Structures are given as C-alpha cells and as structure tokens.
C-alpha cells in the first residue's frame, strides 16, 4: 500500500478515534482516578483529597453493595440463561420455512424495539396490586388473594427478570439464528439418509455447529444484563428493601443522588472489572479463530 494511502485512511479514522477517546476511553481512565479520591458533589470545600484505596476498603465492608452484587448476579444469571435457552428454541422454530415466517419474525422483534422505559411502565401496570391484569388472570374476582408483586422482595426481582426476558429473548434468538443459517442443509440430509432421528441430528450436527453462536449470544446478553438500570429505576426504584437494587442503580444513587462521586466511581470500576473478566473468559471460550474468521 502506498504511504499516502495510509495517511488518507488514518485521516478518515481520526474523528471516530477522537470521539471514542473523549467520551469512552478517557472517562474510564478518569473513573479509576476518581475512585482514589474523596469527592462529594456539593461540598467542593473538601478539595477532593486523595485517599488511596479507602473507597475500595469501604466497598468491601458495604453490606448494601454486597447485597446489590448478589441481586445483580441472580438477575444476570437467570435472565441470560432464560433468554439464551428460549432464544435457541425460537431460533430453531424460525429457521424452518413455513408460511408467515416473516411476520412471525417481525412480531417477536417488537418487544426488542420498544423502549425499556415503556416496557417497564407496562409491566408495572400489568403487575399492579389492585387492578393489574396479572392478578385478575390468576385470581379472578378473589380480590383478597391479590398479590402486591412489586412490593415483596422475592416477587419484585421476579417481575424485573420477566420484563427483561420478555424484551430481549428475540435479540438472543436472532444471534443464534445467524449461526443456524450457516449450517448447510446437506448435513441434515446426509444424517437423515443414515437414519438419524431428530434428536440425534440436533445433538450431533446442530449443537456442535451453533456453539460459537450460542457463546456469542451469551457474551452479549451477560454484558448487557450487567447494565440493567431502566427496569429497576422505573418499576421498583431498587426496592423493596433493596431487593432489586442492581449495581448500576446503586452506583447511580451514590454518585448522583447522594453526590459521593469518588465512592460511586469505585463501584463503577468494580462493575467494569467484573465485565472485563467475563468478556475475557467468553472470548477465550469462543476462541480467537472464530473471532478472526468473522472479522
């Protein structure tokens, strides 16, 4: 390649690099720096002293943070498992040719396109304790049996998990579908000729070949589920009794409601490190070769 060409391409890349540096890379670096300081918004007279790892020590002894981590962990594992499992079933279904397949695909995509805030309000309405349709469907006119879904710790987390599964299963299905579509039909034909039943065809052809796509769906869903905020903010505000106080919501409260910018940054660095570790593990599992083949 000619030297002038290289300069031209770098010039084209420059604005993108600049935006990503200013709004993503630099903020992450600064979050790390802030997490070593005591910064309280509204009290600038404290002059934001450097306090070393004090924020992190506090974080380790913060029982609310520990609980928040646990809640997030439950949320992430249950939603990603359900979404990838249901997504796989849905993808296997859509992969077959049948009349109306296009409209079916469009219909299952609708929840994905709905703003999370809207779907959160929707579930809050449907789970309402006195006139919600879910109570009515389950208990009819027995008003005394009605459950206050969003006001009880166990059920509140369940409603948020359900809302997330409702919204993003179709996204997981699409990622898996992309993997299914590259499996050549001849493989199935050959197996059928050899007398393999539907289960053995799935077990020995589909499963090994869609594993990379499944792992990628898992990776995307895990990382995205860690960012859950909108659902908890709108449906429960993190309550009752912190039962839905997910990490991003906790960090938000510390930083922007209570103004503890330094401590909040320590939380966000923690979340960041967890996601980084997960991403590295998944990329290892998917394998560099698969990634490279797709680039």
């Amino acid at each position: 390649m000619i030297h002038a060409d290289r300069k031209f391409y770098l010039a084209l890349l420059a604005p993108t690099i600049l935006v990503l540096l200013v709004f993503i890379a630099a903020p992450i670096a600064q979050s790390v720096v802030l997490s070593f300081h005591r910064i309280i918004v509204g009290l600038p007279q404290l002059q934001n002293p450097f306090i070393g790892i004090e924020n992190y020590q506090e974080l380790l002894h913060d029982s609310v943070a520990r609980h928040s981590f646990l809640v997030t962990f439950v949320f992430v594992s249950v939603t990603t498992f359900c979404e990838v499992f249901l997504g796989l079933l849905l993808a296997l279904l859509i992969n077959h040719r049948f009349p109306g397949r296009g409209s079916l695909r469009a219909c299952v995509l609708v929840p994905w396109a709905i703003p999370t805030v809207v779907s959160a309000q929707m579930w809050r309405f449907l789970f309402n304790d006195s006139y919600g349709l879910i109570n009515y469907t389950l208990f009819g006119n027995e008003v005394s049996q009605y459950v206050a879904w969003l006001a009880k710790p166990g059920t509140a987390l369940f409603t948020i998990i359900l809302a997330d599964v409702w919204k993003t299963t179709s996204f997981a299905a699409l990622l898996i579908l992309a993997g299914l579509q590259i499996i050549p039909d001849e493989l199935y034909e050959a197996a059928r000729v050899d007398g393999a039943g539907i289960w053995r065809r799935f077990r020995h052809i589909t499963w090994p070949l869609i594993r990379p796509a499944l792992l990628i769906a898992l990776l995307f869903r895990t990382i995205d589920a860690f960012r859950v905020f909108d659902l908890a903010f709108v449906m429960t505000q993190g309550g009752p009794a912190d039962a839905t106080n997910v990490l991003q919501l906790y960090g938000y409260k510390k930083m922007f409601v209570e103004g503890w910018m330094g401590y909040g940054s320590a939380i966000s660095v923690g979340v960041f490190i967890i996601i980084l570790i997960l991403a590295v593990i998944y990329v290892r599992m998917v394998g560099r070769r698969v990634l490279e083949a797709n680039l």
Partner: protein
Amino acid sequence: MAVAFSLVPFFLFVSSAFKTQTQVTAIPPTLWPSFSLDFFHSAIVQYRILGYLLNSVIVAGATTFVTLFLATLAGYALARLPRSWAYFGLLVILACAMFPQIAIVGPVWRFLRLIGWLNTYQGLVLPYVALTLPLAVWILALFFREIPAELEAAALVDGCSRIGALVRIILPLSAPGLFTAAILTFIYAWNEFFLALLIITDPLRQTMPVGIALFQGEHTVPWGEIAAASFITTAPLVAMVLLFQRRIITGLSAGAIKG
C-alpha cells in the same frame, strides 16, 4: 405462543390509552377500549408530551446523522486497510461497545458540566454518538469490504478524487448497509434513558423516555396518559420493525456472525 407472549402484554397496556378513566382501573378489567381520545388530549395539553417528542426527534435525528457520517469514514478506512490493522481496529471498537455506561457516566457528567453542556442537545448527542459508533462502524466496515476495490481504482483513473470515489461510487452501492446502521442508531438514541436522565434535568429539554419514566400525577399514577405517551413513542419504532425487519436482523447479527 411466542407471538402471543410478545404482543399481548403490549396490546393490553396501550389499549388503556384508548379507555376512559374508570375503565383503566376497573375490576374486572375492560378488555375492549371505548376508543376515547381523552388521554391523548390530556397527555398533550396537561403533560405537554409533544415537547418531549420534539426533543427526542432532535436528539435521535442528530445522533443518527453524526454517527452515520463518522462511521462511513471510519468503516471505509477499516474496510480498505490491511487485514491485520483492520482486525485490531475492529477489536478495539468492539471493546468500546462492551463498557458499562456506569463506568463512563461520572467523568462524562463532570466534563459536560465543565464546558457548560449539561442540559443541552449537543451534550446528549455526543455521548450517544460515542456509544452508537461501534456497531455502526462494524456494520459498515463489513459491508464496504464486499465492494471490490477495483471500482474505486477505476474512478480514480477517471479523475475522481478519493472522497469523490467514496461519495459517488461506494455510497450508492452501500445504501442497504447505511440504512441498517441508521435504523439501529436511531432506535438506540430514541430509547436511551440512563444518560438522558443524568445529562438533561430541564423538563423543557428532556426526551420521551425520561418523560415517561418520571410521569407523575397529582394523586394517582396517570396510567392512561402514560399509555398514551408510550403509544406515541413506540408507534414509529413498531412501524420500522414491521417494515424493515430483514435489514434490522442483518445488522444485529453482523456483530456476531457475518450475515
């Protein structure tokens, strides 16, 4: 089953927008709305949702425009650079897409406050551009790569400039890719809530999702108005999905497996 699970809850919710106040909280619930437009009227007059809608249109529109412009340049460069460079570049960009917003939001907020951009459109649009660029660049780079470089070489011989070749030869051929990237960017910016909540606290500048999340009645939750606002926010998206599902699906799977 899948269709019912996907659509029924949403229909039940938005149908409240067409009910009357007594129907919304009735037990047993009224399934068939009376098609009254009272809630739309009060959502527009009392809660001024058209202002929120306008803000959303401005923010999502500007984000789509800027992101697409930058992503076209970057995607083209990555498609034409040697493979090893492009591989590294795409990996770095993918990594940028994986960060949790919470890890950037504190410093971004302080930076915007410093330059006086809190409560401005550009203060929200620029972070959105940063967050939507990775997927857009990714989609476009994979798309441009399928277009043979000989086409540009021919244009250069004919006296076209480099940029001229990109604009006149590559872009027309890439219309479907550009369109996919534009839809996905627009949907992201239209739906985003976390940053919008933090960066814009002035109700006159807030976007639809923030308006819907913070909807408060005087005494009770104004479900009818919330449903009406939700209907207005969601209708354009549902229309997009139904019309362009094929493009959206290609775009979403581009990040995972080359479609």
